């Protein structure tokens, strides 16, 4: 029995209610964050978080604690009971998950779990040493996360996950390039190679020129399309947003909205992502076909939204922990199908004349209903001229429609990259998107910014 499941079952036993479920998160992680080629924010975290939900006479209350001794769990049980007793009956509550077999998934690597702070510092040093001509900024991080859900229904599931990421911004005053890599196996990553990719990109960004804002044909590297996709997903591929009419897909399921080359799934069982066996209500993960050859098919669901929708809907296993369920379910294992292009250079040939985008910065959803997202490009933006990636350009302000971008796909690489999407706020929960590089005929630039570099 894992530590997380042991704690979950202790907390269920401590609960004061007709019914209760508990999700537990146990984290041990290290973060060797570097800037100007020196580690400056090295952070080691160990923590255990217990979220307890009780049902008392149809009233629901939650409490969370990291005090995991008997006294702490008893206090959490008391707080949850008080929360429930203070609330009216919750007619939207969908009940607790019954025990059900959860799939066997990967996602845990003993060698990654065994990495020490010295190993993390060494990996950071390898990345730094690989880039003598630029300052290196970013991090090497690895961690072990144990999740467990248990309940009075007899549910008892647990999973251990490892994750490791290296992020590299190679930069000087007038140049900057970016690369990153992530996996649940540290042996998949070569920190020095990631740093060199960033440095090679940076060296090409000197002397960036201006460009006239317009809607461009564009190539987006996996780092860029991943971020746009996730922002779109957060606001539109969420069944709560769908039901409330806030999603781009509200009223549009079944319609052909995107190019035929756009197929999108969420699949927690896919070992190429960060595999997950169950969600934070203990519901087994179900693969969801979200877009099939351009046709919008579905979004992801939790128990609450499935009940709200009715008509036989069931949870697809995408719930957050109870207090976070107000956001609705989230697709943490998105994967876009690849295409036939052998490289980004081949995508540039398809584009002909346009722009090449490595990475984006500080996205904001301007209009979630229409899927319009704004942000800046950075650390590797170039012109594409005559089918070749040519000269660097300054950072570009884009305000673009994700649906138009996906409807205008011109090509996708066959190779796909898992891109980390966690910024490591609060409890560690590894997730990312598995995406190809894409070419599109619709990427709208509305302004220009400063040049690359620090």
């Amino acid at each position, binding site marked *: 029995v894992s530590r997380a499941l042991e704690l979950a079952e202790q907390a269920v036993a401590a609960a004061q209610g007709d019914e209760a479920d508990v999700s537990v998160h146990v984290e041990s992680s290290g973060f060797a964050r570097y800037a*100007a080629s020196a580690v400056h*924010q090295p952070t080691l975290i160990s923590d255990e978080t217990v979220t307890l939900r009780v049902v008392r006479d149809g009233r629901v209350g939650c409490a969370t*604690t*990291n005090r995991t001794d008997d006294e702490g769990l008893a206090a959490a049980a008391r707080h*949850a009971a008080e929360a429930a007793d203070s609330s009216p009956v919750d007619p939207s509550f969908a009940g607790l998950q019954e025990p059900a077999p959860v799939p066997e998934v990967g996602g845990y690597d003993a060698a990654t779990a065994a990495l020490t702070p010295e190993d993390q510092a060494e990996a950071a040093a390898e990345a730094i040493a690989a880039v003598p001509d630029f300052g290196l900024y970013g991090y090497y991080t690895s961690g072990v996360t144990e999740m467990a859900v248990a309940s009075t229904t007899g549910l008892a599931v647990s999973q251990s996950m490892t994750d490791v990421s290296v992020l590299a911004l190679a930069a000087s005053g007038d140049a900057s390039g970016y690369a990153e890599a992530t996996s649940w196996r540290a042996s998949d990553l070569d920190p020095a190679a990631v740093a060199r990719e960033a440095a090679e990109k940076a060296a090409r960004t000197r002397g960036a020129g201006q460009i006239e804002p317009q809607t461009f044909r564009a190539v987006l590297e996996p780092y860029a399309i991943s971020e746009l996709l996730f922002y779109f997903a957060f606001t539109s591929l969420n069944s709560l947003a769908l039901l409330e*009419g*806030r999603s781009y897909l509200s009223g549009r399921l079944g319609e052909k909205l995107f190019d035929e080359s756009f197929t999108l799934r969420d699949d927690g069982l896919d070992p190429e992502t960060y595999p997950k066996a169950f969600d934070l209500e203990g519901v087994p993960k179900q693969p969801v076909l979200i877009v099939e050859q351009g046709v919008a098919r579905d979004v992801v669901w939790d128990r609450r939204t499935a009940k709200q929708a009715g008509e036989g809907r069931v949870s697809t296993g995408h719930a957050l922990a109870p207090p976070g369920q107000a956001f609705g379910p989230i697709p943490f294992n998105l994967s876009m199908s690849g295409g036939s292009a052998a490289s980004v250079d081949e995508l540039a040939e398809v584009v002909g004349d346009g722009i090449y985008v490595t990475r984006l910065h500080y996205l904001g959803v301007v209009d979630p209903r229409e899927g319009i997202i704004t942000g800046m490009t950075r650390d590797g933006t170039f012109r594409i001229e005559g089918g070749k990636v040519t000269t660097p350009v300054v*950072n570009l302000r884009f305000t673009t429609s994700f649906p138009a971008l996906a409807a205008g796909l011109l090509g996708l690489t066959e190779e796909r990259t898992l891109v980390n999407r966690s910024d*490591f706020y609060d409890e560690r929960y590894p997730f990312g998107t598995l995406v190809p590089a894409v070419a599109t005929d619709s990427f709208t630039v509305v302004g220009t910014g*400063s040049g690359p570099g620090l």
Partner: protein
Amino acid sequence: VQDLAGHALDAAVAAGAGYADARVVTRRAQHVATKNGEVDSVSDSETEGIGVRVLVDGAWGFAGDPRLSAEGACDAALRAVAFARASASRARTRVELAPIPPAAGDYAAIGRRDPVEVPLEEKIALCLRAEEGMRRPEVKITEANVRAMREERVFRSSEGASVTQRFVECGAGIDALAVSDDGRVQNRSYPSAHGGSSAQTGWEFVEGLGLDREAPRVGEEAAALLSAPACPSGVTTIVVDAEQMVLQVHESVGHPTELDRVYGTEAAYAGTSFLKPGDLGALRYGSEHMNITADPTTSLGLGTFGWDDEGSPARRQPVVEGGVLTGYLASRETSALIGRELGGSMRADSWSRMPLVRMTNLHLEPGAGSLEDLLADVDDGLYLSTNKSWSIDDKRLNFQFGTQVAWEIKKGKLGRMLRDPTYMGVTPEFWGRLDAIAGPDEWTMFGLTNCGKGQPGQHAHVSHGTSPARFRDVQVGVRS
């Protein structure tokens, strides 16, 4: 608790740390959210732990441990030292800290009614009542939320600092989402978007927000936006309300004046700054009307404290005076780098994170007159209210912000409501177009709890006081 911090410091120094500090944090927080007349969530959370930060041979190390025991404290210290030592052997430069007198004393937030002790039934009832007032046929979703937090933070350092601080926060907000029959969506919020506004004080702050009073207006405006014309594109005069000015100050003044960003330590994530160390006292940031002050002594501010998370005392510091950059937000490390005593802005969001340079309370100082006076001097323009979307580049120059609503200004008077307004600019050019700020009577402070920075990420709680402000010749109505 003081002893636990002492154990950690002793262990760190014995293991070779040249400097060490320890923070022991205990926090209890509550959040109540209601939606469409039902309780959406009621949660009550506790977290506690110790964070130990060390310098070994001039390199940082940090470790957090949830166990408030001598064993937990010593483990955190030894792990921090080991991590620092592993980095120190490869470091090319040594971290130096600007000297400060060892902090000593207590700080406690002032408030009449402990918000955590306010019964949950009362919190739920307040939310449901406020929601009721927003209901309209077009308003499909009404939401209300309240939050309450109590935190004790003990800080000790190997230099002899020893302080205990007790913080209390609470806040609330309401939102109405209107959806038209053909699927268009618009929203309005009060007192602020993104969860409302918070303050460091007792429950009387939430009661004083007047959610009931404002709810009917919020619902009516959300409904009216469905049939409002779109904000046109063009270059015009804008008057920005105090709530959106909070975002403007935060993103285009607060973050770029964080000295760690100026030195590049956030380059890979949050970004850097267009400012350089040598700009201090020389760079023209905006027009002569622009005065910005960092003030961790402001009553009710979420960034108010006795000492920051490395023991520097709270003090009021100008950041922009008469449009000229005169200050930075800084740490002891960055103060040493720039050679000026600017520290006092180091904050961590929990026991498990290293302190970073963060905003405290950053205010736009008021000008003169009323909002009506600002409008009166606009022949043709827009009045923009309540943040909806935001994005700014990695140097904090090029921004595009959207608000929930705009009203035309025609010959000094407010006219038609407009939907989906956006405006964009480049930071010093935009602030250079500032030609008036409303006076102290219009000055309002908002508290935000969602300021992100750092890797691993941290959420800072910060406050900004602003008045409505007027800017000439601004690009509005950006379209995709």
